């Protein structure tokens, strides 16, 4: 089922997403800022993009059983590239959880709470907003 072209699209999406997140993190995750803004921005941006993708592109399973084979292949490729590749790679849970762990280890209570609230609040709100706007 999985073809080589699927894997290529996935890899390209994943590579660009990771690069974008890394650049954001390098630029904005400075020790002086109260929150790791780069990772926060990457996560919220990815959630917003995923909102657009979920609203606009057909589901993977639906596109696979579509009547037009060529259109379904293109839709599947776009879906793989955008959702499973780029958006998922742009967002990260490992950095987020590890930063929370570091904050907790440093004995902070308010900062991790603020970080969790801003990430989940911003992420869910942006996803919902973009989903309904698109």
């Amino acid at each position, binding site marked *: 089922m*999985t073809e080589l072209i699927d*894997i290529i699209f*996935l*890899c390209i999406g*994943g*590579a*660009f*997403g*990771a*690069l974008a*997140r*890394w*650049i954001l*993190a*390098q*630029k904005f*995750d*400075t*020790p*002086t*800022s*109260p929150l*790791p803004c*780069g990772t926060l921005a990457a*996560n919220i941006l*990815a*959630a917003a*993009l*995923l*909102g657009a993708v979920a609203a606009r592109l057909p589901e*993977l399973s639906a596109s696979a059983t579509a009547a037009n084979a060529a259109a379904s292949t293109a839709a599947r490729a776009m879906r*793989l590239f955008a959702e*499973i*590749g780029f*958006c*998922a*790679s*742009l*967002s*990260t*849970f*490992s*950095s*987020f*959880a*590890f*930063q*929370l*762990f*570091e*904050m*907790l280890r*440093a*004995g902070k209570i308010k900062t991790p709470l603020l970080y969790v609230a801003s*990430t989940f609040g911003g*992420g*869910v709100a942006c*996803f*919902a907003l973009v*989903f309904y706007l698109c």
Partner: protein
Amino acid sequence: MRFKKPTAQKFPSTPRADTAERDNAAAHTATAYTTHPNAAPNTADTATSTCRATHSLLNAEKLPQALCVCLGGAAGVLARFCVCENLGYAAATILLCNISGTFLMGFASRLRGKLGKNTTAFLTAGFCGGFTVFAGVAKFAAQKLASGEFDICALDILSNLAFCILAAFLGYKLGGAFTRTSQHSPTAPEK
């Protein structure tokens, strides 16, 4: 310092001849960090690295690291795709990926002085970042909120948070065990 991503650990620009010395400094920093968790290490370096981070992002020095991040991201996405194809695209699969990815993140971050900058970038920012996903969690939470299933939404978010922080802790501890064993061994100096 604590807020930086682990890969953001930078050292002041040294000529190529000083590589060994720089690696020793890195190992020493990592050791100091493990013995004194609350002491902020290399505060002098932090100011320098902040200046340089704002100065230029993708200079020739950073290029191998960026390439490693790209490769790691592609590998991580591919690994998650394989897991999802076999276990199904469900919230539980994402949870599993997040937990295992965060465990590796904690492990690699603890050993960052030993692994070298490029390997750490490949593993943490690349592979772990591509393997774990926040957007999927946000999507699931938003869908459950929209359908009024607040308890499932809260359960998903809280289980992700709790298990992942626990996994980061366990990975960090495991990395610490590796650091200690290699310190006591006579053939310790390796990159």
